[in-house]
C-alpha cells in the first residue's frame, strides 16, 4: 500500500493536461496549485490513514483476488461487514478532512462494473469480467487512485444520445480497431480527476439499441493522448491565492475539485474495455454504480456534518451563548439530522446482498432514501449552523485586515467574542462554517450521486407499492378481489 507521499510523488510523473482559468498548468507542479493542492491533501489522507493502526481496521481489507492486505478503496465488497465498514470509513475520513476525498467514486465504479461484467459474460459469452479482474489486480497492487467517470454533458435532456444535434454530448465509440477502440465525448463534474491516475468510464444512463455506440465502459489513464481537463471554479476560490484563514479549510479545500474532461478521439486497448455496445446492460451498470455511490452519503456527509455541528457548538461558546437553551436545542437537532443520514447508509449496507459475482451489493431502496435525505437534511443542518453562527461570518473583514499593522487592532478589538478567546480563533471557526455551509458544498449535496429526482424515480420501482395497497385493503376489511384498480 502506498503512503500519501507516494501518491503525491506519483502524480508528478503524469503528462496530464489541465487548464485552469484559461491557462495550461505544468503537469509536474499542478498538484501544488492553490486551487488544487487541498484536494490532493484530502485524497492523500486515504493513503496515510491506511498505515495508521488506529484506523486500519476500517481503511484496509484483504483482497479476494490475491489474499494481500489492500487499501479498502481498491476492494470488492465480500460481505455486508465490508459494506458497513465502508460507511464507517467514510465518516471517519470526513471527520479528518471536513470535505470530499474523492476516492469513493472509482471504488463504487469498480464494484458496480465487477458485478455487471460477471452477469454480462454469463449471458452473452463475453470476457469483460476477466479483463476487469486483471485490471483490478494491477489497481490493487499499485494502490491507484481511479476516478469513476459517469456523467455526460447530455445536451438537450429531452433527446436520446443519437438524437442530439451534436453526437459527442455523450461519450461514444467512434472506431473499433483490432487492438482497441477510439472514444469521443466528455465527462462533467469529475471529482478528483486531475489528481487521479486513471479514469473508469461508464455510460450515463440506460440505452436502447439505437444508442449502442454509447454503451461503453473502459479505463484510460487521465493523461492519455487526446484528453484535456478544464478545472472548475468554486465559490470564493480566489481566497486560495491569499492567506489561510479566509479559506475556512485551507488544508483540504471544498468538495472534491471538479472538472470537465474532454475525450477527443482517445484510444483504449481491448484489455481495458469492459463494455462495448452491450446496451442492454448499460442501465444496470448505471443503477448499480448509483446505488453504491448513494450508500456513501450518510457516511461522508455524516462526517462532514460532525465537523459543522462541532464548529457550530464552538462558535456559540466563543460568542458567549453556548449555554443558551435554544442553542443547545439547535445543536441537538443537528445531531438528530446527522445521525438520520448515517442510519440510512448503515441500514442499506446491513441489508446488502450477494450478487452472482460474489460481490455484495447494497439495498438499493435504502441507499436511494439515504441520498435523498442528504439533498434535504444537509441544507437544514447548514441552515442551523448559519443561524447559530451569526451574520458576522458573511460580513467580517479579511485575514489581511486582521494582520494589517494599521487596522488589525480594530479587527482584533471588534470581532472579539468571549474575552478569553483570541479573535483569530473565532474568525477561523466562522470561516470554516461559512466555507462548509454555502456555495459548492451545498450544491454537491443536492446533485452529487444524482439529483433528487434520480432517487425518486427509484422508489416506484423498488418500494413494492402493491404490497402496501394490499395491506391497506386488508386492514380496511376489503377483499382485494372486490376492488378494481
Amino acid at each position, binding site marked *: 500500500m502506498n503512503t500519501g507521499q507516494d501518491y503525491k510523488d506519483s502524480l508528478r510523473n503524469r503528462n496530464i493536461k489541465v487548464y485552469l482559468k484559461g491557462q495550461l498548468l505544468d503537469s509536474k507542479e499542478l498538484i501544488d496549485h492553490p486551487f488544487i493542492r487541498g484536494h490532493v491533501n484530502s485524497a492523500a489522507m486515504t493513503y496515510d490513514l491506511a498505515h495508521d*493502526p*488506529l484506523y486500519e*481496521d476500517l481503511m484496509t481489507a484483504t483482497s479476494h483476488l490475491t489474499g494481500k492486505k489492500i487499501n479498502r478503496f481498491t476492494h470488492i465488497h465480500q460481505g455486508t461487514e465490508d459494506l458497513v465498514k465502508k460507511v*464507517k*470509513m467514510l*465518516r*471517519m475520513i470526513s471527520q479528518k478532512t471536513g470535505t470530499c476525498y474523492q476516492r469513493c467514486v472509482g471504488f463504487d465504479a469498480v464494484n458496480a462494473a465487477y458485478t455487471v461484467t460477471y452477469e454480462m459474460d454469463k449471458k452473452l459469452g463475453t470476457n469483460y469480467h476477466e479483463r476487469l479482474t486483471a485490471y483490478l489486480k494491477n489497481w490493487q497492487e499499485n494502490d491507484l487512485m481511479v476516478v469513476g467517470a459517469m456523467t455526460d454533458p447530455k445536451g438537450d435532456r429531452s433527446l436520446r444520445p443519437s438524437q442530439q444535434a451534436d453526437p459527442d454530448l455523450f461519450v461514444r465509440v467512434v472506431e473499433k480497431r483490432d487492438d482497441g477502440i477510439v472514444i469521443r465525448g466528455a465527462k462533467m463534474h469529475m471529482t478528483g480527476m486531475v489528481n487521479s491516475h486513471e479514469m473508469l468510464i461508464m455510460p450515463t444512463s440506460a440505452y436502447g439499441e439505437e444508442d449502442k455506440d454509447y454503451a461503453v465502459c473502459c479505463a484510460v489513464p487521465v493523461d492519455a493522448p487526446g484528453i484535456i481537463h478544464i478545472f472548475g471554479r468554486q465559490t470564493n476560490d480566489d481566497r486560495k491565492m491569499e492567506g489561510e484563514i479566509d479559506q475556512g479549510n485551507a488544508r483540504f479545500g471544498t468538495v472534491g475539485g471538479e472538472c470537465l474532461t474532454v475525450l477527443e478521439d482517445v484510444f483504449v486497448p481491448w484489455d481495458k474495455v469492459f463494455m462495448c455496445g452491450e446496451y442492454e446492460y448499460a442501465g444496470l451498470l448505471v443503477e448499480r454504480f448509483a446505488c453504491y455511490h448513494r450508500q456513501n452519503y450518510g457516511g461522508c456527509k455524516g462526517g462532514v456534518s460532525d465537523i459543522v455541528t462541532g464548529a457550530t457548538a464552538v462558535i456559540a461558546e466563543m460568542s458567549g451563548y453556548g449555554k443558551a437553551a435554544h442553542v443547545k436545542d439547535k445543536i441537538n437537532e443537528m445531531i438528530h439530522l446527522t445521525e438520520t443520514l448515517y442510519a440510512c447508509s448503515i441500514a442499506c449496507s446491513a441489508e446488502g446482498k450477494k450478487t452472482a459475482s460474489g460481490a455484495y451489493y447494497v439495498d438499493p431502496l435504502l441507499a436511494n432514501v439515504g441520498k435523498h435525505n442528504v439533498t434535504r437534511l444537509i441544507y437544514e443542518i447548514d441552515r442551523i449552523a448559519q443561524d447559530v453562527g451569526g451574520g458576522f461570518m458573511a460580513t467580517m473583514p479579511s485575514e489581511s485586515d486582521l494582520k494589517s499593522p494599521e487596522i488589525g487592532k480594530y479587527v482584533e478589538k471588534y470581532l472579539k467574542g468571549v474575552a478569553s478567546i483570541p479573535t483569530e480563533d473565532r474568525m477561523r471557526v466562522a470561516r470554516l462554517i461559512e466555507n462548509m455551509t454555502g456555495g459548492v458544498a451545498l450544491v454537491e449535496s443536492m446533485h452529487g450521486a444524482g439529483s433528487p429526482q434520480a432517487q425518486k424515480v427509484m422508489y416506484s420501482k423498488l418500494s413494492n407499492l402493491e404490497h402496501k395497497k394490499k395491506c391497506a385493503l386488508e386492514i380496511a376489511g376489503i377483499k382485494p378481489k372486490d376492488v378494481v384498480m
Partner: protein
Amino acid sequence: MRAGNCRHKAKRRSDVSCSGKRNIILIKDKGVFLRVAVKFCGNCNSHIDPGALYTSLKEEREGLIFDFYNDKESFDILLIINSCPIGCATSPPFYGHVVIATSESVDDWPAEKSQLREAIWEALCTRIKQEESNK
C-alpha cells in the same frame, strides 16, 4: 496465521502472576515478557482517545510488551480497543487470550471511562490466571 502462538509459553505459565490488589501483572523472571497485540476499531466515533489509552498501557506496565496487532508475528494476548460502545472492530483469527474493550465496557462488563485502563488490566490478569489454572 501465526498469531497466538506463544513463543515463551512453557516458561511463561510458571513465571507470571497477578496481584489482585493492584491489578498489576508481576513478571517474576524479568527475562520473560508477554506480548500483547493491540488492535483498534477504526475510530469513526471516538468516545475515548484510544491512542492515549494505548500509550498509557504501554508506559505504565512493566514486563509486558505491547505492540500493534499484525498477522505476521506471534502474540500471547490480543487486546481489541473499540472507541465507542458499539464495539464493531473485526476480531482476527487468534488462538490465544482475547480481551475486548469498548468505551464503556471490558469483556461485556460495564466500565467507567475513567476506570477503563484498570479494567483492561484486570481482564488481562484474569486471562493469565485462567491459563495458569489450566496447566
